């Protein structure tokens, strides 16, 4: 009886630990993994590995607006529910991955055509892919460094002309007038001694346009209309929508808190 009691108690401890696992800190993604999205709405059901979408590779070539406004990809992983047939019709991934579009004079491979099964593995590639890792580090070696995220200062890379993300896809993007430059504004930090935040509209609109943030992510247009805290951001809301997963992460305090210190 005593042994049974001990066994039951041990079982409770193990089960408790297993549940507590969910509250433990997640492994920090490596620079080449940061921003990667695993998409598995239909892949495994179709007998394929889930798709690993590498943000670093795509953001080095195209602006956020091209994919998330013009092509229509959702902002949350798996929310778009892309089907192979959609790509085959020239939508979503098929907007560029159609075997005809070119980048830097090179033809972009065709996705989900069904003609070449070896190509499926380029995207349906869950698991460690050493070639991709090498490709990332080779790409990143001459770019300005950053402490967090991909380890790349993307903004500086563009300012220096080291990357030039395309902002218009012929036949898909709508020709728009250039955005009027919005003024930067300051947001007070809620913690004493923490520098205030300087929000740059121009830095954000250059890659995103207006409709990516307003009104879905930020409902209020007037300063201070949308109330949020760092907890909200760490939950992936507001700035955390991008700055938790793809853009430089929230742990990089000094990128936003650059204003004067509140007394």
């Amino acid at each position, binding site marked *: 009886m005593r042994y049974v009691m001990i066994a039951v108690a041990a079982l409770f401890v193990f089960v408790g630990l297993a549940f507590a696992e969910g509250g433990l800190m997640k492994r920090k993604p490596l620079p080449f993994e940061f921003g990667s999205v695993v998409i598995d709405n239909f892949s495994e059901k179709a007998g394929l590995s889930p798709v690993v979408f590498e943000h670093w590779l795509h953001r080095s070539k195209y602006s956020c607006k091209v994919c998330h*406004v*013009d*092509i*229509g990809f*959702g902002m949350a992983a798996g929310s778009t529910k892309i*089907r192979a*047939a*959609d790509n085959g*019709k020239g*939508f*979503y991934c098929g907007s560029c991955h159609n075997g005809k579009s070119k980048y830097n004079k090179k033809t972009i491979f065709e996705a989900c055509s069904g003609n070449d099964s070896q190509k499926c593995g380029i995207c349906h590639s869950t698991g460690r892919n050493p070639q991709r890792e090498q490709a990332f580090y080779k790409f990143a070696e001459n770019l300005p460094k950053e402490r967090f995220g991909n380890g790349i200062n993307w903004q500086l890379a563009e300012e220096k002309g080291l990357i030039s993300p395309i902002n218009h896809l012929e036949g898909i993007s*709508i*020709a*728009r*007038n*250039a*955005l*009027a430059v919005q003024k930067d504004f300051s947001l007070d930090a809620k913690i004493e001694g923490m520098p205030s935040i300087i929000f740059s509209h121009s830095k954000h609109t250059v890659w995103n*346009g*207006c*409709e*990516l943030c*307003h*009104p*879905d992510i930020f*409902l209020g*247009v*007037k300063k201070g209309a949308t109330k949020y805290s760092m907890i909200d951001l760490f939950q992936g809301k507001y700035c955390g929508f991008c700055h938790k997963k793809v853009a430089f992460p929230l742990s990089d305090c000094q990128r936003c808190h650059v204003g004067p210190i509140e007394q």
Partner: protein
Amino acid sequence: MNNDKLQRVVCQVGAAILLSFVFIALPTEHDTGISPLCFVKPTQAAEESWQQEFNAVCSQTNDSMSLSREELQLLIERCEKLKPVIEGQEETTRKVYGKRLEMCKNLLVFVLETKK
């Protein structure tokens, strides 16, 4: 009606029937199912028309802050008219353009609200 006249009518009707069979039997285009005899493809023409309207309306999102309330209201109404047209498209077009239109309209509504 004499025999000659009757024969001529029968021949004309026969020729018309034969000709109609030839037209029906001509291969249609695989993608659209439309006979190549159609001078203008109606679905393509309609598609171009709604896409042009979509482009015309949603190209103004970058200028939305400088538009008047009346102009914004008019654009929103044009978005609302486009919605059922897009909903009538095939699945993927509906999904892609439905989302794009929603983002575009939501921004215009949002800017209009801030101007009130």
